[in-house]
């Protein structure tokens, strides 16, 4: 059952004025796997996630989740269906305590605030957030802690599919390793399928089952990390776009 299709993206396109951000991209994500989505700046990775999670309405193409067409549905509806995401640029709740922020996520699946808080506690502990800081306000915690809260908030909505948008950007190497373990744990123990957008190759190569490469809004190639690493197209794409 581990390779049942969870999300199917069918020839998705999105334009901003003149720029074509997504050009007829098709891909599928199977249940239980970790898919790394890589590509140079402006490849359309984040745009893809935004289209899937309903932040943007795609110009053409379909998004099918669990066999249901969710194209262009508003974000909160899609969240209910079971797709969650984190943000490249953190979106912190400065004036809410850590536990409150995560509880807000957990309340998607229950009306009972007390239950939600208990779930939030579990999630936070699961991803190894220091218990001593649960009651801290958002404005008083560090960047990595924000990333963790952001992650916990998303997990708390009990998604089937979770997109991580550059979750380790701006973190120090040892912090990256911490997150890597957390991500693997989420996938294995919580049975959450993951789409991981990344720049940090070491990180994404190490955790992904499959890699999808986007380039200038097109799907360049996909395969196992090893295959992709060897793929000349990929190498050329990265070198080609290296700032000289």
């Amino acid at each position, binding site marked *: 059952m581990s390779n049942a299709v969870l999300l199917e993206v069918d020839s998705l396109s999105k334009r901003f004025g003149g720029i074509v951000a997504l050009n007829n991209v098709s891909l599928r994500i199977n249940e239980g796997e970790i898919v790394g989505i890589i590509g140079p700046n402006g490849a359309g990775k984040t745009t893809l996630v935004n289209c899937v999670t309903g932040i943007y309405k795609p110009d053409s193409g379909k998004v099918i989740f669990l066999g249901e067409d969710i194209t262009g549905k508003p974000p909160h509806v899609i*969240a209910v269906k079971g797709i969650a995401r984190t943000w490249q640029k953190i979106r912190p709740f400065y004036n809410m305590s850590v536990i409150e922020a995560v509880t807000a996520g957990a309340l998607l699946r229950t009306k009972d605030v007390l239950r939600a808080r208990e779930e939030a506690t579990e999630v936070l502990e699961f991803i190894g957030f220091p218990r001593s800081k649960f009651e801290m306000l958002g404005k008083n915690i560090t960047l990595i802690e924000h990333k963790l809260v952001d992650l916990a908030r998303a997990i708390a909505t009990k998604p089937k599919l979770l997109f991580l948008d550059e979750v380790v950007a701006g973190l120090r190497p040892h912090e990256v390793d911490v997150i890597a373990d957390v991500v693997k744990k989420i996938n294995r123990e919580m049975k959450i399928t993951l789409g991981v957008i990344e720049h940090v190759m070491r990180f994404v190569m190490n955790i992904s089952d499959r890699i999808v490469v986007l380039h200038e809004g097109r799907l360049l190639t996909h395969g196992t990390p090893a295959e992709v690493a060897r793929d000349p197209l990929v190498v050329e794409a990265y070198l080609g776009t290296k700032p000289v």
Partner: protein
Amino acid sequence: MTQVNSRNIFSIVLPSLIVVLAGATIPFLVGFNQYYVLLALQSVIMASIALAWNIIGGYAGQLDLASFAYIGLGGILATMLMIEHNITPWLGMFLGAGVSAALAFIIGFPLFRFGIKGVWYALSTAALVVILHEASIMILGPFDYYIPFVEGWYYIRFRTWENLYYFSLAVLAFIISLNLYISRSKLGYYLKAIREDEVAAEAVGINVRKYKLLALVIYASILGFIGYLYIVSQRTFSYNTFSGPQSVYVAIIGIVGGLGSVSGVFSAALILKIVEEYLRGYLGGVLPGLHLLLFGTLLIVVGILRPEGLSSLTDTLTRKIKVKVLRWYT
């Protein structure tokens, strides 16, 4: 222990209970001196209005500047029904609440539908007050009513102020409880999330539009209900009841008190009202407008130094008390 409190009714009802009981003693303590009772009454009504605002402004983070549009609409409706058709305010206040809620829905639905927020939301609400002000003149002519003297609970109007004060106190208690309940309920968590970041809120499955509208309607219906109390405490009403400056003043109390902090807003309303009256009584003739000048300065200071407002003080205070009480019994 917040986890535990968030469950029980106790922590929701206790504060309002204390407020009621403490408040109830005031008339006795001042020996039924009408001046102090009236001052208490006006403070209580102002606190109620500010705490109603706290729901849309404090929790949902929408800078609403239309409070007196809803107060005026609901209040004038209830009062007119009483004057013209001798209908008891007990009914009229609920009708007023209904009409204000309806107005809020009519205004709020498109506003949120078209994603109007921030300064534009503030401005449209400010505009709403002006529109009602002028519209009321167009409909009723330049009107200036004095509530004819009728006494008794049927009219909730009395020669002395005590009864009205007790009634308003009960209303305040209800509003405090409502605030505390909301802040501990799913609605509260969602509103705060919306206040902090609408996009992130959407992404965790919160129907931002729906919950903002809900908050607005609750707020408006409370004000529509209070409207009659406000007017009967003034004895007269006119098209000036739709007051822009007053509406801004309410928002100021909410901000100075600290967004979403019940204790903060409550004490802010009381302090500002009492300071204002003190200055009127003792300096009024000497330096016109001094108290408003002070408020302005206070507002600037709060904005720059303490965006969290009085709450930073009151919250720590309440927490300290809690802890003390706990130590006592463990």
